[in-house]
C-alpha cells in the first residue's frame, strides 16, 4: 500500500549500480532458472541466497523489481517485506513459495507484494508477472511525475470495497452474495489487454487462487487471484465479451463474478479495506 502512496521509480543514489531484477531464493537452481529466463528478455538480474544478503545488496545497488521466496532460512519473505517498508525501499516485490497456501498468498499481497506466484512456475508465468511488475513501475513513475491531478492514471478502489493487494476487489451485496472483479491498477498493468477467460457458474473459487485469466495481444496470460472463497452464482458475460467494459468501469459494470461466499466474514478481514486508501 505504501508503495502506491509514495511510489518512486528512480531514486538512484550516487554510484549505485542499477539492476532490473533482484531474485532472492535459498535454492540455487531456482536462482539460475530465474536469471536465465529473465536475461533472455534482456533484463539484468542479480541474485541473493537469503534475505540478509539481499538487504546488503540493496544498500549498494538499486533494483527495479524484487522476486522473493517466502520460506527461507533466517529471515523469511514476510520479514523481508517489512524490512523493505522500514527502509522505505519502494521497489515492487513479487512473492513466490513452494509452500503455496492460501494464507501465504493473501498475506503476501496484504503486506505490499504486487504479485504472488506459487512454485513450481513456468517460464511464462514468471515472465508475465515480471512484465506486469515493470508496467506497474511505469504507472508509479507516471503518478510521481504528474504533479497535478489533471489526468487520472488509474482509478482507485471505491470506498467500502475490499481488495486483495492490487489484483482483485470484493464488494458485499445486501443479499449476502459478493461481487468480485479486477482492480483498475491490475488491468492497467496489462499492456495491450485483449480479453479475459472466466470460469463457469457453480465452480468453486478459493481465496488467493486464480479465478480469471487476463490476456494480452501477444497471448500472454495473467491470472487474477480471487479475493474470497465461494461458489460462483453468476458470471458477467458482458464483461467476458466486451473488454472495454472492464477498462472503462472496472468496479461496477465490469464485475466478473457474483459469489456465494463460504466465510466472507473471516476472509474479508484479511483483505485491505479500500476506505483506508483515501486517508
Amino acid at each position, binding site marked *: 500500500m505504501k508503495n502506491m502512496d509514495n511510489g518512486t521509480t528512480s531514486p538512484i543514489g550516487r554510484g549505485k549500480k542499477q539492476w532490473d531484477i533482484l531474485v532472492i531464493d535459498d*535454492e540455487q*537452481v*531456482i536462482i*539460475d*532458472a*530465474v536469471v*536465465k*529466463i529473465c536475461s*533472455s528478455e534482456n533484463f539484468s538480474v542479480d541474485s541473493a541466497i537469503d534475505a540478509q544478503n539481499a538487504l546488503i545488496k540493496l544498500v549498494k545497488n538499486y533494483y527495479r523489481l524484487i522476486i522473493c521466496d517466502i*520460506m527461507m532460512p533466517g529471515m523469511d519473505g514476510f520479514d523481508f517485506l517489512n524490512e523493505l517498508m522500514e527502509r522505505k525501499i519502494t521497489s515492487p516485490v513479487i512473492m513466490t513459495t*513452494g*509452500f*503455496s*497456501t*492460501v494464507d501465504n498468498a493473501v498475506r503476501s499481497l496484504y503486506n505490499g507484494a504486487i504479485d504472488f506466484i*506459487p*512454485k*513450481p*512456475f*513456468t*517460464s*511464462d508465468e*514468471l515472465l508475465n508477472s515480471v512484465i506486469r511488475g515493470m508496467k506497474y513501475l511505469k504507472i508509479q513513475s507516471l503518478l510521481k511525475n504528474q504533479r497535478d491531478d489533471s489526468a487520472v492514471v488509474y482509478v482507485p478502489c471505491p470506498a467500502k470495497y475490499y481488495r486483495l493487494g492490487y489484483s482483485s476487489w470484493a464488494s458485499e451485496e445486501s443479499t449476502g452474495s459478493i461481487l468480485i472483479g479486477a482492480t483498475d491498477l491490475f488491468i492497467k498493468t496489462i499492456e495491450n489487454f485483449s480479453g479475459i477467460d472466466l470460469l463457469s457458474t*457453480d465452480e468453486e473459487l478459493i481465496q488467493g487462487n486464480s479465478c480469471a485469466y487476463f490476456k494480452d495481444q501477444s497471448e500472454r496470460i495473467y491470472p487474477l487471484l480471487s479475493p474470497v*472463497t465461494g*461458489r460462483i452464482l453468476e458470471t458477467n458475460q458482458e464483461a467476458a465479451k466486451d473488454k472495454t467494459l472492464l477498462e472503462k468501469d472496472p468496479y461496477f459494470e465490469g464485475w466478473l463474478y457474483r459469489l*456465494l461466499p*463460504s*466465510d466472507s*466474514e*473471516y*476472509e474479508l478481514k484479511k483483505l485491505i479495506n479500500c476506505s483506508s486508501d483515501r486517508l
Partner: protein
Amino acid sequence: MSKKIGFKLIFIVGIAAVLIIGIFSFYNIRSQSDALQAEVERHANQLSETVKHSTRYDMLLNQRDRIHTIINTIGKQPGIHDVRVLNKEGEIIYSSHEQDIGKMVDKNAESCYACHAANEPLERLPIKERTRIFYNDSSRVLGIINPIYNESSCWTAECHAHLKNQTVLGVLDVTISLTDVDEQIKRGEINTVIFALSAVAALSLLIGLFVKKWVDKPVKELVNATREIGTGNLNYVINEKKTDEFGMLAKSFNNMTKKLSEARVQLFQSDKMASLGRLAAGVAHEINNPLTGVLTYSSFLLKKTVNNPEINEDLKVIVRETKRSREIVKSLLDFARQSVPKKNNVNIEEIINKAVSVVENQLSINHIELIKNIEKDIPQVTVDSNQMQQVFINLLVNASDAIGSKGGKINLSASVIKLSPYGITHIKQAVCPKRHDLIDNETKIDGMPSIKLKVYSNGTQGYINLDPVYGRSNHIFHFPMNLEKDYKLVCPKCEISLMEEGKRCPDCNAPVYSFEVPSRGNVQGCLGKNCSWQKWEAVDLGGQKDYLEIKISDSGCGIPKENLSKIFEPFYSTKGQKGTGLGLSVIWGIIDNHNGTIKVESEVNKGTTFIIHLPINQN
C-alpha cells in the same frame, strides 16, 4: 482375587455364626445349669427335711444308735456326699462319715458361714441362703444346712438335754455331690461347640460353593477379558446372559470395549492423519523447489525450440507432465492444509442445505431421492462452514456414486445426543507450573505423544510416560521401583514439584500429582498400585456433553468389511481413475480438527451410513 473374596466372606460369616451361636449357647447352658442346680437344691432340701423328720422321733427319745443307722443308710445313697448333724458348739454329733464324729467345725467353715458371717449368728435363714456350693477334691458339692430349732417337746423330753431358752439346737448338714450335674452341663457344652463348628463348616461350604458358582466364574471371565483387552484385543466380548449385577457389569464392560475400540481407531487415525499432513506439507514444499527447476527450464526450452518440432514435442510432454505433478502436489497441500479451520458459530441446517443445493443436480440425474430429517431447534455449532460444507458435499457425492445411476435413496438426518468424555478425551497439551512442555513426542502410547514426568521415590529416581488419554492408565514406567507409598513427581526440565500438597487419592490414598492443560484447567491423578484415578474438572464439569449427530446413509452398493478400516486412509480409492483417494481422508481430518468423530457402518448391497459427531458448545 476371587478366592480372596470367598475367604473374606467365609471369614466374616464364620465369625458371625460363632458369635451368635456362642452367645446363644452361653445363655442357654447357663439357664439349663441353673435349672439343674435348682432341681438339685430342691432335692437336697427335700432330703434334708426327710432326714430331719425321720430322725425327729429318735432324737426326742435320744436313741442315738437309730439316728446313726438312719444317717448312715441315707448317707450311703449314691450322689449323697455327706449327712451330718452339728450341735450348737459346732461339734459333729452324727455323720455318715463316722471318723468325723466328735470333730469340731470351725465357725468359718463353709457350712457355718451363712449364719455366722455376721457377729451375731442369725437364727432364721431363707432356704436360698442355706445352700452353698463348694469344692471337695476338685468335684463340686452342694451343701444344704437345716437348723434344728428348739421346740417344747425338746425341753420337755425325758433326757432334759436342752434348755428352754435355746433357739437353735444344732444343724443338719446334707451335702450332695454335683458330679453328675456337672457332667451333664459339660456334655451340653461340648455338644454346643460341635454344633457351632459344624454350622460354620456347613455355612463356609455353602458360601464357598456360591462364590465359586456366582462370583468366581464371572469374575474370572472379567479378568480374562480385561487381560485380553489389555493386550490390545478390543474385539473381545463377554457373555451377557446373566441377569444379575454381573450381567449388567458384562453389558457395560462390552459397551466400554466397544467405545474404547472406536476411540482407539479414531485416535490412531487422528495421529496418522496429523503426521501424514505434516509429511505431505513437508514433501510438497521440498518437491516444489526441484519441480520449479524442471518446469522453468523445460518451459523456457519449449519456447526456444519452437523451430525444432521434434524436440519441441518432447519438451511439451515434459512440461505437461511436470504441470501434472504440480497438480498432484497441490492436492497434497490441500489435504495438509485442513489443519487450521476458520470456525464460526453457524446453523448446521444452513450448511447442509447449501451442500445439498450443490449436489442436487447430480442426484436428480441419477434418480436419487434425498430424504432430509433435521431436528428442529438444533443449537449452533462452532465449525468452519466451508470445510463442513465440503464434508457434506463429499459424503453426498460418495453416496450418490455408491448408488450409481439405477436410482435409490439417501437419508440425511441431524439430531442432538449426549456422550461422555471419560476414557475418550485426548490430553493434547500439558505444562508444568513454569510452563515447560511435558508432552513427549518420542514416546507414544497408542500412537499419541505421551506426557513425560520425572519420579523420585525411596531415594531413587526415574521417568514415567503417562497415558495421554484421560481416565486411561497405560503408563510406561522407566524404573523398577514400587510406587505404592510415597513418591514425588517433578517437571523433567525444571524439577518443579507437580504434587498436590496434602491431597490424597480418594480411591487408594496415594499422593496426587497435577499438571496443567493450557486453558483447559488441571488434570489430577495418582500412581498408586492398581489405581487409575484421574480427575480433569474442566472436562468432567460438563459430564455428558451434547453432540450433534449427523447421519448420511445411502442405499448403495456398500463397503466390504475388510475395506471399512481403510476408507479413511489417504489415497485409498475404489473409484479408480475417477477419484484421488483423498476425499474421505480429508473429511476425516476436517472432523478431527473440529474435535468431532466420524465413523462408518456398512453392509454390502444394502448401503452405507456415515455418522458424524460434533461437539455443541453449551454456552
